[in-house]
C-alpha cells in the first residue's frame, strides 16, 4: 500500500506546479475568449464565438496569420538547410574545430532580445553598420532604410531568426552524428561507395529521426517567437510585420481587447496541436514502411 503511493508522491510537486501555472491560465483564456470582456478584464455576457467571428473578419488578423505561417516555414526550413552541412563539417576532425563550434553556437548563449536590439542598430539607415559594410563591398550605392518597410524588414527578421535557430539545430544533429558507427562508413568505402553515396545512403537515413525532432521543436519555438520582431519593428510599420504573437500582445496589452486576444491565443494553440499531431502521424507512418 505504502509502496504503491511512492511514485505519485514523487511526481506531485512537478505536476502541481505545472498544473497551476499552465492549466489555470488556459482555463481562464478559454473563458475570456467566450465572454464579452471590458478593458479591465471584467467578464460580462457570454457571447459564444463572437470574438472568433470578428477576428476572422479582420484583415489584419488574417494577414498576420498568413505571415506567421510564412515566417515559421521560412525560418525552420532555412535553418535545417543551413544546419545539416554545418553539423557534418563540425563532426569531422580539423584544425580549429573547437573554436568553430563555439563561434557557431554563440547566438544561443546571447539573449535573443540583445541580438535583436543590436541588429536594430546595425540595420539603422544612416548610422547602421550593415549599410556601410555593404557600401564598402560595393553591393549597394545608397543607404537602405531596412526597418522602414516590410519588404526589407521582414526578410531581415527571417535571416535573424535563422541565425539564432542554427545553434540548437546543429547541436541536435551533432548528437545524432555522434551515434553513427564509424565502421559503417569503412564498410561502405570498401564496397566502393563514394562520399555522396555514403551521405545519401548512411548519414541521411540515420540523421532522419534527429531532423524530425529538430523540425518539430523549431516549428514550435519559431511559431511562438516574440523578441526578434518586437525588438526590431514591434510589428510595424502599420502592422506590416506583425505575426500572431505580436498581434496577440498588441491586442491584449495595447488595445485592451482581452477577449479577442484570448481567442488569438487559442487559435495559435490549435494550429500548433494540429501541426504536431499531423507531423507525428506522418513520421510514424514513414517509420513503419
Amino acid at each position, binding site marked *: 500500500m505504502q509502496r504503491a503511493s511512492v511514485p505519485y508522491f514523487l*511526481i506531485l510537486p512537478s505536476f502541481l506546479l*505545472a498544473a497551476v501555472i499552465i492549466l489555470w491560465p*488556459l482555463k481562464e483564456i478559454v473563458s475570456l475568449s467566450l465572454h464579452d470582456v471590458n478593458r479591465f478584464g471584467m467578464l460580462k455576457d457570454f457571447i459564444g464565438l463572437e470574438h472568433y467571428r470578428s477576428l476572422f473578419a479582420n484583415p489584419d488578423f488574417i494577414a498576420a496569420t498568413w505571415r506567421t505561417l510564412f515566417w515559421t516555414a521560412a525560418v525552420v526550413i532555412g535553418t535545417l538547410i543551413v544546419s545539416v552541412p554545418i553539423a557534418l563539417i563540425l563532426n569531422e576532425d*580539423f584544425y580549429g574545430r573547437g573554436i568553430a563550434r563555439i563561434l*557557431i*553556437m*554563440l547566438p544561443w548563449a*546571447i539573449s535573443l532580445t540583445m541580438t535583436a536590439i543590436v541588429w536594430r542598430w546595425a540595420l539603422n539607415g544612416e548610422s547602421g553598420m550593415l549599410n556601410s559594410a555593404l557600401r564598402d563591398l560595393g553591393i549597394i550605392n545608397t543607404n537602405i532604410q531596412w526597418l522602414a518597410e516590410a519588404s526589407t524588414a521582414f526578410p531581415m527578421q527571417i535571416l535573424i531568426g535563422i541565425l539564432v535557430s542554427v545553434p540548437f539545430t546543429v547541436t541536435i544533429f551533432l548528437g545524432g552524428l555522434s551515434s553513427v558507427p564509424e565502421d559503417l562508413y569503412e564498410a561502405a568505402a570498401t564496397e566502393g561507395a563514394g562520399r555522396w553515396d555514403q551521405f545519401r545512403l548512411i548519414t541521411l537515413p540515420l540523421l532522419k529521426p534527429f531532423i524530425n525532432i529538430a523540425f518539430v521543436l523549431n516549428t514550435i519555438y519559431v511559431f511562438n517567437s516574440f523578441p526578434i520582431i518586437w525588438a526590431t519593428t514591434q510589428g510595424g510599420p502599420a502592422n506590416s510585420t506583425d505575426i500572431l*504573437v505580436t498581434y496577440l500582445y498588441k491586442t491584449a496589452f495595447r488595445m485592451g481587447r482581452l477577449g479577442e486576444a484570448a481567442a488569438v491565443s487559442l487559435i495559435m494553440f490549435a494550429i500548433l496541436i494540429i501541426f504536431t499531431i499531423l507531423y507525428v502521424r506522418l513520421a510514424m507512418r514513414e517509420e513503419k514502411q
Partner: protein
Amino acid sequence: MSKKLKRSILFWLFLSPIVVVILFPYAVMAISSLKSATEVLNPTWWPDELHWQNFPEMWRTSGIASALANSLYVSGLSTALTILVSIPAAYALSRYQFAGRNAFRQFLLISQMLSPIVLVIGLFRLVAGAGMIDSLNVLVIIYTAFNIAFCVWMLQSYFSTIPRDLEEAAWMEGASRTRTLFTVFLPLAVPAMVVTAIFTFINAWNEFVIALTMLRTEGSYTLPIRVFSLVAGRYTVDWHYVMAAAFVASVPVAILFAWLQRYLVRGLSIGAVK
C-alpha cells in the same frame, strides 16, 4: 601539405560566410560600445578614440547593476527549483510502473506546446489576481513551471540509461532505497543534471515576454527588459550606452556557455535518442 591541413582550410573556407554573418552583430555591439556619443552615429569600423568610460557611465546611469542582480536571482533560483522538482518526477518515470504514468507523460508533452506567450493573458490574470505583479518570485515560479517538461524528459531518458544492477547490488548490500538513491544513483546522473541546469538557466536568463508583462517598476527589471527599455519608446536613444549594456549583459553567459558547450552536445544526444 598534410591531408588534415588541406581539409581544415577547405572547411574554414566553407564555414567563413556563416561565421561572418553570426559575428557581425556582436562586432557591431563591441565596436559601438566603445564609441563616443557623437561618433556612434557615424558607421565607421574603428573608433577614432576608444571610449572606455562608456562602461562606468552606463553602469551609473542605466540601472544595469540592479537588473544584473535581478537576473541572477531569478535564473539561479528557478534553475535550482526546476532541478529539485524534476529529479523525483524523472526518477518515478524511469524506475516505477504506475497507473497514470502515460497520462503524466502526455501532460508534460502538451505543457511543452503551450509556450508562455500563448498563455500570457491568463498568467497575467493569475498573477494580478494574487496581487503579485512586479514580484521576481512570481517569475521564478513561472519559469520553473515552463521548464519542468523539458527537464523531466531529459533527466528521465538519462536515468533510463543507468543500469538497475548498480542499485540492486547496493540493496543487496543492505543499503536502503533512499540511501542508494543518494550515494549510487544521483552521482551517476550528474552530467544530465548539469545539462538540464544550463538549459534552464539560459532560458530564464533570456526570457523576455513574461518579464515584460509582469515587471512594472524599474527596480525589478531583469536584464533583457532593462536593455529593451533603453531603446523602446524613446525619442533619442543613447546607442553607445545601449551597446555597452548589451555587452555587459551578454558576455558572462557567453563565456559560461563556451566553456560548457561540449557537455551540451553529449547531453542532448543522450536525451534525443531515447
